């Protein structure tokens, strides 16, 4: 597996959990933000939020910054690269397949 594939794997594995997706959106909308502030708006405990943030940080999706006694989390835009590469590759593959499907449908119409 290439380093690129591995980065994409980590991103999507981290996002497999819907709660993690909601936490990521909260960080994107309100970051830099603390785990306590995120937990206040979601039906999960602060402890659970901290665990999810650790997984997101390990996947390179968020970064933590200590400010005094607080730890605030913000989005790492570079994380988008892996997702964009994946989307571009999948998009190209379907464009190729659907072009072939269209060609086949034309032949089927002529044969009918």
């Amino acid at each position, binding site marked *: 597996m290439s380093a690129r594939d591995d980065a994409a794997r980590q991103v*999507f594995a981290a996002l497999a959990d819907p709660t993690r997706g909601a936490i990521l*959106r909260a960080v994107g909308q309100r970051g830099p933000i603390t785990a306590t502030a995120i937990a206040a708006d979601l039906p999960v405990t602060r402890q659970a939020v901290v665990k999810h943030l650790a997984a997101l940080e390990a996947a390179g999706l968020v970064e933590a910054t200590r400010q005094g006694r607080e730890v605030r989390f913000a*989005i790492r835009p570079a994380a988008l690269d892996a997702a964009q590469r994946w*989307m571009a590759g999948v998009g190209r593959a379907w464009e190729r397949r659907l072009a*072939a499907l269209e060609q086949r449908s034309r032949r089927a119409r002529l044969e*009918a």
Partner: protein
Amino acid sequence: MVGDICNRKVASTLASVHVTRDVVLDVDLATAWELLTDPAELAAWLGTVGDVPLRPGGAATVVEPDGTVRHLVVEHVEDGRALGFVWWADGDELASRVAITVEEHDGASRVVVTESAVARASIAGATSRLRLGSAWDGRLLDLELHSLSRTLVAV
């Protein structure tokens, strides 16, 4: 402000990673469905596929023109209208959920494909359950046929 918008965009994109493409085929819905599900037709645009059991849990292997081998498990079938499956390439820890729909479009057929990424680990349980369910469907059908044959012999 620009940073805020960028962060929201990144978070929104990452939280809903999917790709959608569509094509309009100048054939009727029945023909479009056949092109999408008949193994002989699939070979012309998707890849070499053995039999594709069109029921939840039905499993197949696709060999794409570039040699990529993908394993596929059907999750959802709405006959003639919609097909949903998960698939993954050999040795890849990423899997995808694919939804294909066919709808009437000005006398032709519009095919819409949406593929979203999922981690293999997150679908392992579902895939396993689907396969087990499929296996029991087959066994129960065999049992029903066997009981019918015994009834016929008794008559």
